[in-house]
C-alpha cells in the first residue's frame, strides 16, 4: 500500500471493516440469487451516501470533500474484496469525474450535489460493440433547432437499469473511427425515445443496453464544445480505468488471500499442500505479480491526483498490469482449490466471473498495451 495520509488510513479502515461486516460476499450471493434488475441493495447504497463516499471526488463548493482519486481508489479496493455491488463507481466516480472535467458550471451546480446525496445516479454510455474502441463511436447526434437528436445504441452500460442520467458519447460529425467529431451529452433516463433493457451478465451486476430512438435533447445537455470531446473523453476514461484498477486490486488481493489460506489448510498426501515446492513457488510468483500490480494501480491514482502529464500512460499501465495479475490470480484461485473451486456453493466462481468483466471494461490489457506503445511512439 502506498504511504497513506492519516485521513486515507482512516477511510481505508472504515471501508474495510464496513464492507466485511455489512456487505460480505454472502450478501452479494443472496442478491445474485434474487436477480433484481437494479443489481444492488438499497440500504448498501444509502449507507455509502451517508459515509460521504459519493462526495470524495466532488469539490467542496458542490457539497463534496474533494479528497481525490487515491482516496476513492482505497474505498473501491476494499469493496472489490467483498464484491460489494453498488452504483458508487458508475455515478460518484466516473459520473462525477465526467462532470468535473467536462461539465458546464450549470451542469456542476445542478448535478454534483445530487450525486453526493445519492438522489441522482449517473453513468457513462460509451461502448457500442463487442470491443472497447471509443473512436469508433457511431451513435449519431444531429443538430436540430435549439438542440440535438440522438440515434443509436449503447451496450454494457454500467448500472444502466438504475441510472437516472446517462452521459452519452455521440458522433456529431465525421465518421466512426475519426478522432474529431465526438460530443458528450447528459441525457436523463426518462427522456422520450430512450429505452433500456437489462443485460444479464456472468458477474450478476447491473448492466443495460440503451436504445436512443430520435431522442431530443436541448443544447444545454451538451458538455463542452460540440465535436471536440475526444480528448476529455479520454481523460474521463483514464480516470475510470484507474478506478477499475483499484477494484481489480481488491478482487485479486482477496483471491490471493483465499488461495494462500487454502494452501495452509488443505491436506493431501499427509501434508498441507502449501509445503509442496511447486505450489510454494506458484504462490511466490503470484505474490510478486500482485505487488508489482499494486504499484502500478496506486501510481495511476497518484498521477491523477498530482495532475501529472503522464496520466494516460499510468492508467494504461494500471489497467494492463493489474488486469494481467487478476486474470492469472482468478484462474489459480480455481485451479489451486481444485474440485471445490468449481462448485457454485464456493465463492471462487464469483470472483472469477467478476474478474473477467472488470478486465474487459474500458479496454482489456491488450488494448492498453497497444495504447501504451502508441503513447511511447512505436
Amino acid at each position: 500500500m502506498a504511504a497513506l495520509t492519516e485521513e486515507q488510513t482512516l477511510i481505508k479502515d472504515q471501508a474495510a471493516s464496513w464492507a466485511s461486516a455489512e456487505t460480505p460476499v454472502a450478501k452479494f450471493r443472496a442478491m445474485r440469487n434474487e436477480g433484481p434488475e437494479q443489481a444492488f441493495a438499497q440500504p448498501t447504497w444509502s449507507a455509502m451516501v451517508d459515509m460521504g463516499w459519493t462526495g470524495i471526488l466532488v469539490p467542496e463548493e458542490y457539497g463534496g470533500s474533494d479528497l481525490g482519486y487515491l482516496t476513492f481508489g482505497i474505498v473501491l479496493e476494499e469493496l472489490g474484496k467483498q464484491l460489494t455491488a453498488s452504483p458508487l463507481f458508475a455515478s460518484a466516480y466516473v459520473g462525477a469525474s465526467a462532470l468535473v472535467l467536462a461539465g458546464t458550471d450549470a451542469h456542476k451546480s445542478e448535478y454534483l450535489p445530487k450525486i453526493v446525496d445519492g438522489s441522482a445516479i449517473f453513468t457513462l454510455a460509451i461502448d457500442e460493440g463487442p470491443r472497447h474502441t471509443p473512436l469508433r463511436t457511431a451513435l449519431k447526434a444531429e443538430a436540430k433547432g435549439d438542440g440535438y437528436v440522438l440515434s443509436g445504441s449503447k451496450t454494457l452500460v454500467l448500472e444502466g437499469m438504475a441510472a437516472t442520467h446517462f452521459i452519452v458519447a455521440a458522433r456529431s460529425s465525421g465518421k466512426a473511427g475519426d478522432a474529431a467529431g465526438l460530443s458528450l451529452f447528459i441525457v436523463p433516463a426518462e427522456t422520450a425515445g430512450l429505452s433500456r433493457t437489462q443485460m444479464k451478465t456472468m458477474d450478476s451486476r447491473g448492466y443495460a443496453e440503451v436504445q436512443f430512438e430520435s431522442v431530443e435533447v436541448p443544447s444545454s445537455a451538451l458538455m463542452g464544445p460540440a465535436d471536440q470531446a475526444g480528448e476529455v473523453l479520454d481523460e474521463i476514461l483514464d480516470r475510470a480505468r484507474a478506478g477499475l484498477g483499484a477494484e481489480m486490486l481488491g478482487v485479486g488481493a482477496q483471491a490471493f488471500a483465499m488461495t494462500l489460506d487454502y494452501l495452509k489448510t488443505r491436506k493431501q498426501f499427509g501434508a498441507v499442500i502449501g509445503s509442496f515446492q511447486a505450489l510454494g513457488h506458484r504462490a511466490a510468483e503470484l505474490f510478486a505479480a500482485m505487488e508489482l500490480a499494486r504499484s502500478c494501480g496506486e501510481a495511476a491514482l497518484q498521477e491523477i491526483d498530482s495532475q501529472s502529464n503522464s496520466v494516460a500512460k499510468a492508467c494504461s499501465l494500471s489497467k494492463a498490469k493489474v488486469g494481467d495479475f487478476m486474470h492469472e490470480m482468478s484462474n489459480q484461485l480455481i485451479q489451486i482449490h481444485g474440485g471445490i473451486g468449481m462448485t457454485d456453493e464456493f465463492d471462487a466462481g464469483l470472483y472469477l466471473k467478476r474478474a473477467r468483466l472488470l478486465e474487459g471494461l474500458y479496454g482489456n490489457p491488450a488494448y492498453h498495451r497497444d495504447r501504451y506503445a502508441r503513447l511511447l511512439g512505436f
Partner: protein
Amino acid sequence: MTETNNLDGFRTEVSDWVQANFPSTLKGLDIMSESPSTKGVGADFSAWQKKLGDKGWGTPTWPKEYGGAGLSDPEAKVIRQEIAKAGAFNPIPPMTGMGVTMVGPTILEYGTDEQKAKHLPGIASGEVRWCLGLSEPNAGSDLASLATKAVDEGDAFILNGQKIWTSGAHISHWCGAVVRTDPKAKKRDGISFVMLPMDQPGVETRPIKLIAGSSPFCETFFNDARAEKTDLLGDLNDGWSVVKRLLQHERQSQTSSPGAPKVDAEPLQEQAKRYVGTEEDGRLADPDLRLRLVRNLMDGEAHKLTVSRITAEARGKVNVSAAASILKNSMTRVAQTKAELTLEMMGHQGVGWEGNQFTDDELQSVRDWLFGKAMSIYGGSAEIQNNIISKNILGLPETTQQG
C-alpha cells in the same frame, strides 16, 4: 581533523585543484571498461593517479598517516561531486581491486598499527591491488563451510586449498583470505582472516573464462602458500566476524558508482525502430516483437514504481514492506528479457562475437546478454528467492518433498 568548516570554501579549493591538475586527455575515459595505455594516455593516467594520491584524495577519509587526507564524510562528498562535475574520475579505487572499498576499511577497523602502516599507504596511492579469497568450489552461499586449511608453522601459516570467483587474482599483489585454522571447532568458530602476497611459489591463479568470454574471475590455488602471522587480521579463529564486516563494506560499496553517471542510452523502442522499421502509422513493423517489447517496458516501469513505493512506505516505518523481497527476481526478469529482445531486434547484427562487421554496441549486447544469465544465479538464485518468499513472507511450511 577538518581543515575548514566552510564547505563552500573547500568546494572552491577542490574545484580549482581538479581544474588545474586533471589532464584533459583523460576526459570521457571509462575506466571500468577502457585501458588507459591502449588508448595512449597511460602516462597522463599515472600522473593523475600520483597527484590525487599525494593529496590523499583517493581515500579522503582515511587518516593522513596512512595516505588519506583525514577529511570528514561531507568533505569527501564534496571531492566526489567536484571530480564528477569536472568530468574527471578517481582512478585509485579501481586500481586497487578490493583494496579501497573492502580491505582498507576492514584493516582500519581490525588491523594493528603495524598492519595499517604496512598495507594502507599502498592502497591509498593506488599502487597495490588486492583480491579476496572467499568462495570455494564447495562453499558458495554457505561460505562458512570453507575447507582451505591454514596450519601454524611458527612465524607463519601454511595454506592449502582452492578459492574460486577471486576477482582480479591474476593481476593482484595481495590477497585477503578466509581460511580454516581450527578444523575441530564449529564451522564459524574455526575460521581466520589472513593476508598474503600473491607473488610466491605456493600461489597459482587461473582465470575463469565465462560464456561471455574473458572475465575478471579466477580460481586461486594455495599449495603450501605462506601467510605471515603478523598478517593475521583480527584474532585467531575470529575470522568470521572480520569477513561479515568485510561483506558489509561490499554492500555499501555497491550502492555508489565510481565515475560520473552515464548519459542514458537510446530507448529500446527507438533502437527497435532502427533495426526493424516501422509501418506507415509509426508502429514497429514486427507486431509480435512490438507487443513483447511493450510488455518488457511495462514490467520495467512496474519494477521502478515498486522500488519507489517501498521507499515511500519505509519512511518512518520500522517494518519495510514485504514487497522488497520480490525485487531481485523482478529486476532480473526485466533485465534478462530486455537483453533477449535487444538481440532479437538486432537480428543478424545481434550474433557477433568480434570484428568490424558489428558495431561496438552490437558486440556489447551479445556479451551483456550472456553475462546477464548470471543475474538469476548469483546473490541467491531465482529459485532460492521464491523459497524465501514462500516461507518467510507468505508463511508457507518447509517443503516436505525429498530430493
